């Protein structure tokens, strides 16, 4: 299986260059056309925003689950895994029910008489970000949780007896020790976001596209295979760089822990 896999990546380059003999026009187009630069920039920006928000949103629940003495902690963990079993497309489209013109928020606002007409909230960059966050947050929380769980619980009280405030104890002891999990979560969310195209198609407006959407357009709509291959390889290269940079800094082992 992995042979096909490896092979398929090689073929990418080959075909992008091979179909019309050996030429670089696709790559030249990629490097010179502003449209593609814009898409790359947009994708990076979106991925960074989603990753940062997921880290901020996810750290506190992970901390809570790891530190709580709540008897039914397993339930909290189970609830974290549950969303993985709920269909991705259902979870994504469910936001139309929340934010759409016939959605819950507009329903409440109209019922309370605050607004007459539904407020348009859908199909913007924000809804795409919310959609991504909703789907990827459990990955982040699980990864952070795994590394927080591995920290000796006596460390924070020890820091406290040595004169730290609670916040200092957290910042100087717990936070640095949880960096591997946080990093793994960030990498995962970043890569997953940068590689998607379905969420912007469902929740975004015509202007909200990511690099993945260009690949989708090239192959599904325009049947421009060489360009699609070029774009795919460019995306792979871009994310590969991110992964390599990351593994230089942190190593990839932590990434596997969360799945086991």
């Amino acid at each position, binding site marked *: 299986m992995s042979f096909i896999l490896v*092979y*398929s990546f090689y073929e990418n380059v080959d075909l992008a260059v091979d179909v019309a003999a050996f030429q670089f026009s696709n790559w030249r187009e990629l490097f010179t056309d502003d449209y593609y630069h814009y898409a790359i920039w947009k994708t990076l920006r979106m991925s960074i925003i989603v990753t940062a928000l997921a880290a901020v949103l996810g750290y*506190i629940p992970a901390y809570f689950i790891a530190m709580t003495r709540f008897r039914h902690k397993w339930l909290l963990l189970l609830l974290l895994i549950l969303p*993985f079993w*709920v269909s991705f497309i259902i979870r994504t489209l469910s936001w139309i029910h929340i934010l759409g013109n016939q*959605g819950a928020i507009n329903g409440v606002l109209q019922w309370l008489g605050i607004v007459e007409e539904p407020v348009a909230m859908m199909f913007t960059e924000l809804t795409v970000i919310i959609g991504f966050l909703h789907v990827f947050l459990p990955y982040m929380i699980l990864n952070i949780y795994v590394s927080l769980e591995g920290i000796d619980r006596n460390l924070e009280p020890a820091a406290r007896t040595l004169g730290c405030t609670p916040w200092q104890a957290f910042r100087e002891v717990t936070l640095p020790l949880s960096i591997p999990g946080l990093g793994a979560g960030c990498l995962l969310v970043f890569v997953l976001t940068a590689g*998607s195209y379905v969420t912007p198609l469902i929740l975004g407006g015509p202007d909200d596209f990511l690099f993945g959407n260009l690949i989708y357009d090239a*192959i599904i709509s325009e049947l421009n295979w060489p360009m699609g291959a070029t774009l795919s390889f460019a995306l*792979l290269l871009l994310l590969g760089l991110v992964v390599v940079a990351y593994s230089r800094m942190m190593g990839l082992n932590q990434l596997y822990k969360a*799945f086991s």
Partner: protein
Amino acid sequence: MRAWTLIKAYTALVYVFMFAPIAVVLLLAFNDSQFGGFPIEGFSFRWFHELMQNEAIIRAFRTSFALGLLTAVIATTIGIMASLALVRYSFPGKNLVSTLLIAPILVPETVLAVGLLIFLRWLSVPRSFFLLLVGHVIIAIPFVVLVVQARLVGIRREYEEASRSLGANPLQTFFQVTLPLLMPAVFAGALFAFTISFDNITATIFWRPSGSETVPTQIFGMLRHSVSPEINALGFVMIVLTVGIPLLAGGLARYFSRKQT
């Protein structure tokens, strides 16, 4: 302590964020209204009836189900063999193989999809159900390997050695000693593989043969127009299937294991 209360409230809010939209879909599935949104006009099973009569959806369900089952069986079989090789034996290039097996997790599905598609185009093989199956197996394998490997590391080698010294051949040892011990991980892995396949849309859109749909691509196609109430009902069915069955299986397993002890 006040900080702790804040943390608690915040956590509760994040859980609401994760589950409120799902709850809304479950609720709207029973809405009697013509449209797939609020306000709720009454309780009815009408959309479930419509759903059963919708042949396209039934067909998509069948495709998805077959695909998921086959993916689970194949990915789990390959996953077990790969994990065995990686944990129990050493061979040249082991690190490379291990990296390659796990790599698809970090490769965006879009790229994976295009890669396989172009490879097959180069071989001049048209898109088919078989290609879809191969693709889903590739996507599912890393997860199966991770789950099975984690368990296999925990099974002590002595059991296998004892079995061998008592005269069992390697095959007998595997089927009568290793595999039973591995069973929980095998089930978990198979379940994982099934859900991954059943849920996949990103790569499936690229791989599906023209004219054939899986449930997610069918929903995706229906979304082009608007969120019809049928989609909500379909969502309900899918959530009950993909969440209910594993929960039930897990609960039963726990119940029986408690009974035994």
